């Protein structure tokens, strides 16, 4: 045990002292905070488009086109289309597009409408304009058939859907934005970190092998100790990174928050930003009054509490579950990666053996998104994905924000523990033979033989 501890220390310290670790730890929250400021600034500066209208249809369309948040209509200058086009070109700073209704345009054959602009018109802008024109033409048709404007307005339905989660105490409002954001964020964190640090374990092992230090090490420690020491040391690096990110991004967003609150109130934030915010805040004490959280009001109607967006999320099980399933998944996969590193002579040979390890990892992420986030988070497929130990670290973490019954958490956790004990045992058997095997072309058949070597 003492020896494992020494190995853990070395693996941890050599990595944490690297410049790249420091850069990663500082840069990631900066990038995060920076991109949030960027998103906020962009969304606040997303100005209303000014569209010049040249109407030759004689329907008085310009007066009827209703301005919205996104688009506003002004009459085009000039007495002909060519003149209007010319004027638009010269005056392009003020007008974003020129909308042209030809003389042939009638309510019944609404064709030939053109949108002229410098360069391509974005789909969003096209849709906004199309919607405005559609509404106007629709209203005109309705009034032609004898309805007055107030009747038309009365006919329009404006339904707001409000989903309520009954499993929550008191049937609190279901916060889909935050839930989905958290599900995405947590699962991609698990996926990325298992991948990145699993490969680091593999590299570390194969580096020891190609440095020929294995034999020196193995004359003092057991192969299993060496392997576990490396895996645990790197796990400690990951958690240090998590903690640093949490503290730094909390600190940075606290500083950046005053800059954001104004603009953020106007525009609903992007889901990813909300999720990131949520996670960083979630890793802090959830009760901490993080002003930054106000930027992340995924629920459009911001409640008075700054942490309102966390309402309805089972925070305790998310944090606990995330840490547990991340660690479990990391241990499971990294021991397999360690076995690969031990089996091959150099990194290029590692590719073929990495394939069967990375495929379940990638698949479990992709399939989980479809089954859980876009499907039924509590359906049978979601259940099985979160039970099989190769997929459960990602699938279960993705399900956590939607709320998972305790018995499923415990069962899946137990299976995961059994799973990583098994893979660690398996990996240790390959490892102990592989690390001293040089210059041999390794096949799967060879690997399976190693598992049954004795001594």
């Amino acid at each position, binding site marked *: 045990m003492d*020896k494992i501890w*020494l*190995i853990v220390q*070395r693996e941890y310290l*050599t990595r944490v002292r690297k410049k790249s670790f420091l850069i990663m730890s500082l840069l990631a929250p900066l990038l995060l905070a920076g991109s949030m400021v960027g998103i906020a600034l962009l969304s606040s500066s997303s100005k209303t488009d000014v569209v010049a209208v040249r109407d030759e249809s004689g329907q008085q369309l310009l007066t009827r086109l209703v301005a919205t948040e996104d688009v506003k209509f002004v009459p085009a200058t000039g007495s002909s289309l060519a003149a209007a086009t010319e004027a638009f070109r010269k005056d392009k700073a003020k007008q974003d597009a020129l909308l042209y209704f030809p003389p042939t345009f009638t309510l019944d054959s609404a064709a030939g409408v053109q949108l002229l602009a410098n360069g391509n018109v974005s789909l969003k802008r096209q849709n906004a304009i199309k919607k405005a024109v559609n509404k106007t033409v629709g209203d005109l048709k309705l009034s032609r058939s004898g309805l007055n404007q107030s009747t038309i307005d009365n006919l329009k339905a404006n339904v707001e859907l409000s989903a309520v989660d009954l499993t929550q105490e008191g049937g609190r409002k279901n916060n889909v934005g935050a839930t989905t954001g958290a599900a995405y964020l947590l699962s991609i964190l698990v996926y990325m970190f298992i991948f990145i640090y699993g490969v680091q374990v593999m590299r570390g092992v194969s580096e*020891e092998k190609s*440095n*020929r*230090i*294995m*034999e*020196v*090490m*193995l*004359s*003092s*420690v057991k192969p299993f100790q060496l392997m576990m020491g490396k895996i645990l040391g790197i796990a400690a690096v990951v958690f240090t990174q998590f903690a640093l990110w949490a503290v730094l991004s909390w600190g940075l967003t606290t500083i950046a928050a005053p800059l954001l609150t104004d603009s953020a109130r106007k525009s609903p934030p992007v889901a990813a930003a909300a999720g990131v915010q949520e996670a960083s805040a979630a890793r802090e004490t959830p009760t901490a009054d993080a002003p930054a959280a106000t930027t992340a009001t995924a629920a459009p109607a911001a409640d008075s509490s700054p942490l309102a967006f966390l309402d309805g999320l089972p925070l305790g099980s998310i944090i606990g579950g995330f840490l547990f399933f991340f660690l479990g998944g990391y241990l499971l996969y990294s021991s397999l990666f360690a076995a690969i590193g031990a089996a091959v002579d150099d990194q290029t040979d590692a590719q073929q053996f990495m394939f069967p390890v990375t495929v379940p990892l990638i698949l479990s992420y992709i399939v989980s998104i479809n089954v859980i986030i876009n499907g039924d988070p509590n359906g049978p497929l979601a259940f099985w994905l979160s039970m099989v130990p190769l997929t459960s670290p990602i699938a279960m973490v993705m399900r956590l924000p939607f709320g998972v019954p305790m018995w499923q958490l415990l069962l899946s956790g137990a299976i995961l523990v059994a799973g990583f004990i098994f893979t660690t045992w398996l990996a240790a058997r390959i490892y102990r033979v592989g690390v*001293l095997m*040089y210059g041999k072309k390794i096949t799967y058949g060879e690997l399976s*033989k190693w598992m049954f*070597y*004795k*001594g």
Partner: protein
Amino acid sequence: MTPILQAINVRKAYAAHVALDDVSLDIPERSIFGLLGPNGAGKTSLIRIITQITAADEGEIRVRGQKLHPDHIAEIGYLPEERGLYKKMKVGEQLLYLARLRGLSRPDATQRIKGWLDRLDLKPWAEKNVEDLSKGMQQKVQFVATVLHEPSIIILDEPFSGFDPINANLIKDEILALRDKGATIIFSTHRMESVEELCDNIALINRSHKVLDGSVRDIKNTFRSQTYEVEGRGRLLVTHPDFEVLEHKDRENGHFYDVIRLHAGTSPNDLLRYLIGNVEVHAFRELIPSINDIFIRRVQETMPESLLETTPA
């Protein structure tokens, strides 16, 4: 006195071949022991069993009469043939790490590292990464790592490969000093001439079998062939009832060089007496076989047998 290290009927087989077959060795304390044999003979397998990297299939290793136990790791220092260190780690830290893995406390290790680095002129390099050192210096660091925990058994696999002659001598002196302080040294090598003069005892291993073992003096005595080298001037009779001329070379001005084997019952003095009566003797020397010669002879003797073993009937 119990030998410090004993191998008793050790057998180790891998999937495709038998690496060691019924190998027994006694290694006396405070001696230098040569474990000799060609590449692939099984030397490294035996060492890996002693250092507990692998285990024997049959038989056992005893340290001072005790069955091999994990605690013995601290008593053994092992310099593998495949040298290696963590390249991105500082020399001082690396030595500290390896020493602590072998059970040394931090203050003890630090103090000893200082002493060794001083002695081997490595002190200015203590804070440098291993990759910044020359190959020879890395070898010295590796040697220090092997002996830092003051093991009572030091196993050196191909100890002098990779050292230039100056450093090789430096290391040789350190090894002898360690022996004088009470350590037992085991050399493993296929370059027998490199350790012959240092070893008190040797064992020859070939094709997973021990071919020969004993003290160097005894072995050489056993393999003496009553052959003498004679240089002189004059004419020498080619046939004689008491000896046989194996090789004869005439040189300018009536000088000659002969290799002569005595027949049983003839002493070197008889030959010398004969020579003095006939020619002018310039040199007279017994041809003592080198360990290398002995090994080759021994292997050739056992070869037909081992060929039989491997050829299907």
